[in-house]
């Protein structure tokens, strides 16, 4: 009997059951910085860059919200790739949690890219969707590929199997990005030319990279939120499993 008690204590001490604490101070600060940075971006867009540039007009302003979607999306997809590789090498669930969180945020950035792109298309070409635009197309195809990753999460029931399949798919999805990009860039129907050289003014370049940084702060806050949440859920699940095991052992 005392041996069973020792087992229970041992099992219990492997990890405390996580409390339902609110967001940490660090996280709140992170979000505040993100909001301030975005406010700063709006301020720059209103005051610093020219309101209109020749041949493009004012609709180009959406570019400062569009471009970060592309860069940050790619960055988080890169994270998904790296975390998936790490998971397959180590089989540690923490990498799967990181991969899943990165995929969700990457997908969000991808959607922002698509929605702003589509809005821009409406302003520039008077159509929400332009099949012949290679940027819209590759963003859409990439979003479909990574949507598959998110769908896999609920499709596989057994957790260890889910992690394995997701990691493989995550790697595959990332490897596909250059394929998507080049095949559509090189072989799409001739697209509407975008006059990017008109946007090489110093103020525009500065604001564009500031926008990437500002959104990166926001996306990393979201990543952190997702990661903390999945970590907590898994801890709770583990704690429940421990309780079930203890229960069985005391019955036996």
């Amino acid at each position, binding site marked *: 009997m005392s041996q069973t008690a020792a087992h229970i204590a041992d099992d219990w001490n492997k990890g405390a059951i996580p409390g339902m604490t609110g967001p940490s101070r660090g996280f709140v600060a992170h979000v505040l910085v993100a909001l301030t940075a975005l406010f700063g971006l709006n301020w720059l867009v209103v005051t610093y860059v020219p309101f209109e540039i020749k041949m493009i007009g004012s609709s180009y302003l959406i570019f400062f919200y569009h471009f970060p979607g592309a860069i940050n999306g790619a960055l988080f997809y890169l994270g998904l790739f790296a975390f998936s590789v790490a998971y*397959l090498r180590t*089989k540690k*669930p923490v990498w799967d949690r990181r991969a899943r969180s990165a995929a969700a945020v990457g997908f969000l950035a991808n959607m922002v890219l698509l929605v702003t792109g589509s809005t821009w298309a409406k302003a520039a070409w008077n159509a929400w969707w332009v099949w012949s635009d290679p940027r819209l197309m590759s963003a859409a*195809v990439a979003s*479909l*590929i990574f*949507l*598959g990753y998110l*769908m*896999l999460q609920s*499709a*596989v*029931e*057994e*957790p*260890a*199997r889910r*992690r*394995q*399949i997701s*990691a*493989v*798919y995550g*790697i*595959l*999805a990332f*490897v*596909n990005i250059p*394929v*998507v990009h*080049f*095949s*559509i860039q*090189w*072989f*799409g129907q001739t697209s509407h030319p975008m006059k990017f050289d008109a946007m090489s003014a110093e103020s525009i370049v500065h604001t564009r990279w500031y926008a990437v940084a500002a959104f990166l702060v926001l996306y990393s806050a979201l990543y952190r939120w997702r990661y903390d949440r999945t970590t907590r859920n898994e801890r709770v699940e*583990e704690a429940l499993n421990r309780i079930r095991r203890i229960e069985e052992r005391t019955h036996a």
Partner: protein
Amino acid sequence: MSSGPQSGPQCGASPSATSPTQWGAYCALVRWDWVREMKKKTTLISMGVMGLITLFLFSFAIPISSTKAEILEDTRAGILWVTFLFAATIGIDRAFRNDAESGLLEGLLLAPVERMTLYFARVTSTLLFVVTLQGFLFVLFLVLFNQSISGEGLVGLIVSAIATDVGFVTIGVLISAMTWSLPGGDVMLRILLFPMLLPILNVTVEVADRAFDGRAPTAQQLGMLFAVDALFLGAGSLLFEHLVNDSGGSS
């Protein structure tokens, strides 16, 4: 390829542990896959019939009459490839599902064969089915849609189709190994597979379009297709073992 590690213990009592070379195992797997399919041809027949039905469905989508022949000229390459895709996916979906359900997959996993060999063998046999199917559907397409193709165009089409199929099947078999065990795995296969194929379809449809006009594919187009093949083959051979090996369970 050598078989068996040299580091293992000497089994003096029994000199019987034979393990085949990986090449021998590969050939055996491909041959027996083919023999198995030829017993009943269920997969080939379902793929062929599905392709036929898809071709008929396209006749609704596109107003095909003698006065509008040019519409068909613009769309025929796409029709052909979408038909190939829908039909071939049936075979890809079955690359593991049937064997897993009948228990045969476990038997294959118990054989002294590297996982990579198993993967390449399955890719090869699936590729054979898909190419056979495409030959049949292509002739059917020419007849039903009253099309013709020049000899030069045909060569370009065949080369590009095979280059596309290799990429399609390598990635398809890999995803099939992910989805066969899932509830609703057949739908999931398509959801995961089709977006990954959009880029190469984009290229190969353009090549097919040129082929119908009697023009050869450009070097850049073929280069793209072969590069994708190499990329997918590399990814598939590295990743496959993670899908068929047991995960060890969660802690």
